[in-house]
């Protein structure tokens, strides 16, 4: 049996984009975490007497918003929230999805059918509706929002993992170890999940990116963390007002921050996918 053994080819640039993504991500994280150490601004108390200042006025490089918060400092504080929720929610969604999908894919039969119909149902209900209801049931905070967003976005990883598990289940090593007496838990946790790690890491990366977007949506709709805490989406929630006030540039810092971070994470995810695909082929 002959196969042409070609060395793995990366898509030109995918690797470079991934590196660029990682660098951008690192810089943004540094900006959000270490930024406030170097650049001090009061992000707890309003300052109505210093509201709506243009960039550069009174020592505010990016100006102030309509309650007098320094925009540059706010960008850092907001970024912490966005990133924290994004990462936590993304990981949670991936974890739930992984176990759910692995169970469905490995068990097959009626359990698979039941579990996947639940996923179908979840997909058919708009996530925004669930978030809206959730926000009225509980007071938003970083852990709560992470739970809620993770809780509504595990469906995609669950489907991915199910497909992966259904494939893995047919692999000889799983059959062999099952025949020789391995139990379901051992197979799922000892073999299926470790083998799906590549898929999961990639899915997790994309989940984090998507979660950051979802947090932005939620906050944009006013269902985010209560003030004075904020996040990038919340900074944009008054954007329409800003544009009518002629302060349209106020929407750029948080808007660009979201796009930049989500983009960077996606680049990294794509790079990881290629890397895992390469390892799988080796």
């Amino acid at each position, binding site marked *: *049996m*002959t*196969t*042409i*053994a*070609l*060395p793995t*080819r990366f898509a030109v640039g995918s690797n470079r984009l991934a590196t660029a993504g990682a660098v951008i991500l690192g810089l943004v994280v540094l900006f959000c975490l270490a930024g406030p150490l170097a650049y001090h601004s009061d992000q707890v108390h309003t300052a109505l007497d210093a509201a709506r200042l243009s960039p550069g006025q009174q020592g505010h490089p990016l100006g102030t918003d309509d309650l007098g918060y320094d925009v540059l400092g706010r960008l850092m504080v907001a970024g912490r929230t966005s990133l924290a929720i994004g990462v936590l929610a993304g990981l949670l969604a991936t974890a739930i999805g992984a176990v759910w999908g692995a169970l469905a894919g490995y068990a097959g039969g009626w359990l698979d059918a039941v579990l996947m119909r639940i996923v179908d149902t979840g997909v058919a209900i708009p996530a925004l509706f669930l978030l809206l209801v959730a926000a009225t049931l509980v007071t938003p905070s970083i852990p709560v929002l992470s739970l809620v967003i993770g809780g509504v976005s595990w469906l995609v990883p669950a489907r991915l993992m199910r497909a992966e598990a259904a494939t893995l289940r047919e*692999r*000889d*090593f*799983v*059959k*062999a*170890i*099952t*025949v*020789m*007496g*391995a*139990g379901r838990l*051992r197979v799922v946790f000892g*073999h299926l999940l*470790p*083998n799906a*790690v590549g898929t999961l890491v990639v899915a997790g990366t994309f989940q984090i990116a998507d979660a950051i977007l979802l947090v932005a949506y939620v906050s944009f709709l006013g269902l985010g963390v209560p003030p004075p805490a904020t996040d990038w989406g919340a900074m944009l929630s008054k954007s329409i007002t800003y544009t009518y006030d002629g302060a349209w540039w106020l929407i750029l810092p948080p808007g660009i921050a979201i796009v930049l971070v989500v983009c960077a994470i996606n680049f990294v995810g794509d790079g990881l996918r290629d890397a895992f695909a390469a*390892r*799988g082929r*080796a």
Partner: protein
Amino acid sequence: MSVLEITDLRVSYGTAVAVDGLSVTVARGEIVALVGESGSGKSTVALAALGLLPRSAHVDGTITVAGKNVREATGEELRQLRGRDAGMVFQEPMTALNPLHTIEFQVAEAIRNHDPEPRRHKHYRDRCVQLLERVGVPDASKRLKQYPHQLSGGLRQRALIAIAIAAGPGLILADEPTTSLDVTVQQQILDLLRDIRDTEGTGTLLITHNLGVVADIADRVLVLRNGKVVEEADTDALFANPRHAYTRQLLAAVPRLGDTPHDEEPERDRTVLALRDITVEYHGRKVVDGVSLSVGPGEFVGLVGESGSGKTTLAQCALGLVTPRGGTVDVFGGKLTHKARRRLGVVFQDPASSLDPTKTVEQTIAEPMVIHTRTSRAERRRRVRELMDAVELPQALLDRRGHELSGGQRQRVGLARAVVLGPDLLIADEPTSALDVSVQAAVLDVLERLHQEFGFGCLFISHDLAVVDRVCSRVAVLRGGQLVEQGPCATVLHTPEHPYTRALLLASPVPDPAAQRDRRRLATA
């Protein structure tokens, strides 16, 4: 006059050299075989001949097809050359055909591509029918309307050959054209290739790993190893008098029927595996139909059959992976309980998927011990080392993972895992089919030694009669889900009673051109 002339071909990907200074010519009406094991670079040669190598390949040397220099041809010249001067037949007829187009579309396209005035595809229907009839497709006009997935493997390969010869090329490049086919179908395809050569005078470059196929059809042979030709000779000369050590080694590794003496086996009254009247249905179709089979303690039973004969399904019944619709499965005189599984070992066909790529060799071999025993870590480690020795693997591999091993090494690890608890029954489903012959021989040696050491009963599933003859004492032949014949190897494989067994035996090519000619005469008679 030669239809293909390759001089001093070198192909490399980065630093990896695939082909290293290969020269070969194929004349009209000649069948030249390029034989070698995996990684020898033989497929690269075929692709290079039509300029089909990926951009990343670095190519040196000259390639001339029908007098045209392939390496200097422009894109359009190359396109014209492909199909008209040389047709190509690939190994996997399923993936090599476009699943969304009818056979007619795909055959007609091959004609149309070289029609100076291309017309709509349906204008070529008559020619397509002729072509399909030429390659022996029954009901040609009906088949034209069908899609690849509606055809059997053999018919797909015939359709591919029809595509290859559609524009009347002087050369056919056949890359492992029969590897994925059953022996009986393989025989038909080889006959077809020979017939095309005889009638159309086409030259053929046949790429294969199977020395039996070479002996059957080739006029001349080049033996390839690591991209280099180690020996070139006429077929008869090569088999009669191999000059290079590697060629000799290859030939020696090929199992042959009758090479292994069979002792009289005592009748056994106990069984480790007893399948009684097993019937399995998929979607209302009987895949296994009333098969009874037993394996005694220490007995080595072969189960042979072509694809779709139900042999793997039967094995899965024994393993509890498939629940039969009718009949009983009896393992160690009872049901297949968790306790019984401790005494059961299993080896599968595909070395690529037989090991968990996230586990080290040591973890893999030790896993059954973790499941069934409470042995200490040190004890497990000692046992794993013993087994590494038993399957002839160096201890250095203990911390490697599956994908860092070769195919043969992986199957050895699989064997070690299967026998780590000293099983009473081993079920081996085509454990060597995916391996090169030399590796296969070594793995079979290991298997036999383990059998002697542990004395397990074994159900050995294979499509290769010679392999079965080599390791088994008793054999059962399956066809279409039914048991055709069973008995001692000495009887069934040497003096078969059933016509199907006989046909099977005749269809398996042997690496001996003279014998192969005799057999062919017998088969056509």
